[in-house]
């Protein structure tokens, strides 16, 4: 069986050059979490990408064939998926994978093979440093969190804080690192640092401890799934102080999960779903129509990522990996649902986050 498998012929690479008038045909790979833990995020991401794909293909200048592969949130699977996309599917570029961990494994492979790869949710440190073919359009926590903490501290006159984060996840861990750093810079008194683990159901022990220390605010680095529950349990047990969250907290799901308890949650993010920007409104409406729920930041980032990719393809004029990389790297002032977007010299995000606060069951601009 092994032999047959290895010797199965790979598809021939697509002929590269095309006459200018014809649409550019490209195969783009997506690595996302479809099964297993974390599939909630993967689902939003694939939804966002598919929506953007339909828009782009409808326009007809660029015709994209999506190849979506599941990673189950596992590094080996992400790597295998990347190899499959790069070598069997011969894609011109990859969007994904979902987790920073997975990118740490898939990124180097894509980079070595000269395939542009763009993370839409990989916010950990060191992602784009993997190599010059690695991009991301996810605003790293190191940019988002200082903004939200800064505003919250000023407004609520915060002096003493408690930190709470998921310590077994790269995303929440790097968010926490930033929170700690910013707290230090702002000379805040850190009363305690508490952690939780993925999939935990009960946060009462940590919250009781935090409550007993009477902080002015809780800085919480969590993804919305855990975050929403934490908020709800905190409020229920009478911990009423403001919560400042990371990027991952920014999802309508938080409000859905925590209901009233979400009031006062402050997050910084490029994604503001309640914005009056027609682009955003249009996206939200389409997304809701297609999938029956509101898009969150993961969906929005993936949606923008696809459009950035398509634009770069158009600019490159040809579905060629190296050319696409160069035109991607040159992306400046792209106007997406996340606002104005550019890559910096390190292929990392240049974007200014907005600070949001939950009020009346909605995210609103913090002021």
């Amino acid at each position, binding site marked *: 069986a092994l032999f047959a498998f290895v010797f199965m012929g790979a598809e021939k690479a697509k002929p590269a050059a095309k006459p200018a008038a014809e649409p550019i045909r490209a195969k783009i790979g997506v690595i996302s979490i479809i099964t297993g833990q974390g599939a*909630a995020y993967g689902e939003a991401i694939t939804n966002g990408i598919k929506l953007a794909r339909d828009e782009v293909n409808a326009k007809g200048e660029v015709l994209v064939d999506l190849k979506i592969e599941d990673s189950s949130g596992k590094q080996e699977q992400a790597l295998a998926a990347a190899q499959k996309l790069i070598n069997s599917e011969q894609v011109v570029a990859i969007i994904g994978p979902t987790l920073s961990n997975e990118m740490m494994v898939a990124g180097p492979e894509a980079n070595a093979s000269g395939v542009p790869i763009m993370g839409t949710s990989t916010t950990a440190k060191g992602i784009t440093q993997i190599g010059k073919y690695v991009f991301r359009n996810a605003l790293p926590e190191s940019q988002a969190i200082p903004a939200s903490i800064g505003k919250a501290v000023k407004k609520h006159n915060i002096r003493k804080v408690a930190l709470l984060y998921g310590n077994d996840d790269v995303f929440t861990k790097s968010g926490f690192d930033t929170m700690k750093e910013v707290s230090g810079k702002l000379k805040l008194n850190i009363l305690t640092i508490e952690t939780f*683990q993925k999939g935990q*159901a009960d946060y009462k022990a940590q919250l*009781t*401890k935090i409550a007993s220390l009477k902080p002015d605010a809780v800085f919480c680095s969590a993804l919305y*799934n855990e975050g929403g*529950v934490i908020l709800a349990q905190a409020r229920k047990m009478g911990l009423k102080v403001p919560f400042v969250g990371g990027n991952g907290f920014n999802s309508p799901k938080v409000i859905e999960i925590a209901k009233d308890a979400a009031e006062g949650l402050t997050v910084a993010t490029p994604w503001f779903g309640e914005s009056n920007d027609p682009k955003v409104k249009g996206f939200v409406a389409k997304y809701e129509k297609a999938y029956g729920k509101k898009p969150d930041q993961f969906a929005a980032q993936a949606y923008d990522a696809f459009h950035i990719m398509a634009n770069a393809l158009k600019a490159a004029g040809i579905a060629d990996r190296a050319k696409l990389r160069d035109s991607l790297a040159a992306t400046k002032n792209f106007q997406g649902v996340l606002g104005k977007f550019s890559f910096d010299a390190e292929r990392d995000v240049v974007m200014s986050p907005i600070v949001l606060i939950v009020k009346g069951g909605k995210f609103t601009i913090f002021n």
Partner: protein
Amino acid sequence: MFLEQLINGVTLGSIYAIVALGYTLVFGVLDIINMAHGEIFMFGAFVGMLIVSKAGAPLPVAFLGAVVVTAAMGLLLERFALRPLRGRPGASHLASLISTIGVSILLENIAHKIFGSGNHLFETSFAEIRFEVGPVTIYLVQVVILLISLLLMTGLALWLARTRAGKALRATAENLETAGLLGVDTNRMITATVVIASAMGGVAGVLVGMAFNYINNQIGLSMGLKGLAIIIFGGMGSVYGAMAGGLILGLSETFVVAYGSSGYRDAIAFVAIIVILLIKPQGLFGQAHAEARR
């Protein structure tokens, strides 16, 4: 804070205990660790959630619904994943372990298909009833959970030790062929056990929903792992062991967070079992089998 943490710990521990009881029962009779128990428990929680939050029906209906569904799942599990292996030549006890692992993977992914992977709100007005005792707030739910777990434990312990069926169950547990030759319908006994254990999982699922207000398709795994640790800690097949182990674990997890480092919260269960096993290899309440070496 101490009192509040104590209450947190006891609540968590009671739930652990009920989950562990389900494992213990099946292990005691079949010598099998039912790896699908956590997932059955998770389905119980979801059924309860659908009934309470989505259909708005009262809690007792949720318990009933969860018990019915999980019991049915237990029945199917026994019928299709355990019975065909029983007494098969060459079937090691590992085979049934793997078969239940297969079921657990199946159930987890089915749950994912049906319910998605996010958190679901488990909303009951009952869960809001609380009273203040001095400086501490106690939720009625917390008291109820403790009571239910104590009730299930004593009921089960008495049933096993005193009743005819209980004895038949223990005979079945020890030797299928012999029990059969003594007139015990072993298949029925085993089915009953798996069904009862699963139904208890259903009860535990609803309790988790009530206690923490949220459920997702991963709780089966995290609670299941704890349940496993507890039965080892308390001694396989021991009902009291499951109860004591659950409470000890719930309390130690809570107090590790309260007075130590929350980073080791999940590890504490396993540190505890490693320590206890080194002192008493059969677990806290486990009995060494009289192995006559002849």
